[in-house]
């Protein structure tokens, strides 16, 4: 078998593993980011303190260290995560923490009149946040959230440290065996590039779809 005949099928199985991680980690990290960002603005003292602690911790830890702690460290406490779930959990916590800051900033940028009008028609705080504030804030946070998710595609390669057989881990082991770095890593890089480009186009589409008519700048 030639190098390519062996490498490509293996790489494809790695691509599938990477996509399986992202399929869970991306939406879950967005949900966590929205939750943490919202709690930091609207939560009571306890919940906002807990949310702040989570954000500070997982933005402060290097992701690689977080992954090692989740996989090896938790094992000391008899919590055994599979490599896949340790990686996915690490991505969710890291990306969600970063995303929460975009959400928090976006919530803060919504003018107070929106809240006053919501309260004036009798909305509870929760209704105000769910129906009035978040729909607007999430739109404003979307470019930042997209940015974080594109990062995530790339740093999903860090899952190799806990032994996930994703596309980077597979490429690395092929390069050890055959020492053909240009072929292996350029192929890998192109696949990452395709993924990030598809994501960029997707987020752009979503931003357009959620655009509020009349709020865009039409001049130059």
């Amino acid at each position: 078998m030639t190098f390519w005949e062996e490498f490509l099928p293996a790489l494809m199985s790695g691509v599938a593993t990477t996509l399986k991680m992202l399929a869970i980690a991306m939406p879950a990290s967005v949900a966590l980011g929205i939750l943490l960002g919202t709690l930091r603005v609207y939560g009571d003292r306890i919940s906002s303190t807990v949310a702040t602690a989570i954000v500070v911790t997982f933005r402060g830890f290097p992701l690689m260290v977080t992954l090692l702690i989740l996989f090896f460290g938790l094992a000391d406490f008899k919590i055994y995560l599979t490599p896949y779930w340790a990686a996915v959990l690490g991505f969710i916590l890291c990306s969600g923490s970063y995303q929460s800051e975009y959400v928090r900033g976006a919530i803060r940028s919504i003018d107070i009149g929106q809240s006053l009008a919501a309260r004036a028609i009798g909305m509870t705080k929760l209704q105000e946040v769910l129906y009035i504030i978040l729909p607007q804030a999430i739109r404003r946070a979307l470019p930042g959230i997209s940015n974080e998710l594109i990062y995530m595609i790339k740093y999903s390669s860090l899952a190799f440290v806990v032994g996930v057989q994703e596309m980077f881990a597979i490429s690395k082991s092929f390069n050890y065996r055959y020492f053909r770095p240009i072929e292996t890593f350029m192929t890998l890089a192109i696949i990452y590039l395709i993924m990030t480009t598809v994501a960029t186009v997707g987020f752009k589409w979503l931003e357009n779809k959620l655009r509020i008519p009349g709020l865009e700048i039409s001049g130059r």
Partner: protein
Amino acid sequence: MGKEVVLRAEDIHKSYGRLRVLRGVTFDIRRGETKVIAGPSGAGKSTLLRCLNLLTMPDKGKVWLEDVELTNPSVDINKMRQRIGFVFQEFNLFHHLTALDNVMIGLTKVKKLPKEEALRRAKEALLTVHITEDLWHKYPAQLSGGQKQRVAIARALAMNPLIILYDEPTSALDPQLVGEVLQVMKELARKGVTGLVVTHEIGFALEVADEIMFMYDGIILEKGPPNEVVFSPKHEATKKFFEKIGRLYGERR
């Protein structure tokens, strides 16, 4: 007037730090009445209005809506606010919702009406303020100031309020758009929708108000039928104010 009191404020006080914005305001308003609050900037008009639905919490004093004391901490204020319409100077339409959805959201999410019922009432309210079908699916940013404020009035009206509080509803509008909003407010007043209006539009007050309350320095300095308060006021401050307003606004109707 034998009609029952809809809203009553009793001895309302509010300070911000050492600044005493409201220094004991008492009044009531009966079903079907329209009352106008006028007075110079800083007199406490907007603060008073916000104290009535507790968007601002008064330091002291009581507010009743019919026979429920809103200032009683055990009262569910969210529930009571459904019955107090509030129209803001800056419109405050929900930016992410169409005109129709702005009116509907209170009906579906707060009153939890079924969708068809909410839709019917929202459309009815929009038509009442002369927002025609071609505008129902426009977003606030696509509407003129006058249209926005009329949608905001419809949003308040659709909740079937006992009273609508208007906080300088025409002050943020271009002069040529003021008329359409005042027209809608007059029509509502004539239909018997109870209203309390903070405004400098003396023409509006003279035409439809049952009473003008002139606020000065945190109190109601004088009140009475619009003609008396505007044209033969008892206090020097009242006289000065209406002379100045008269020059600025003319007798716009």
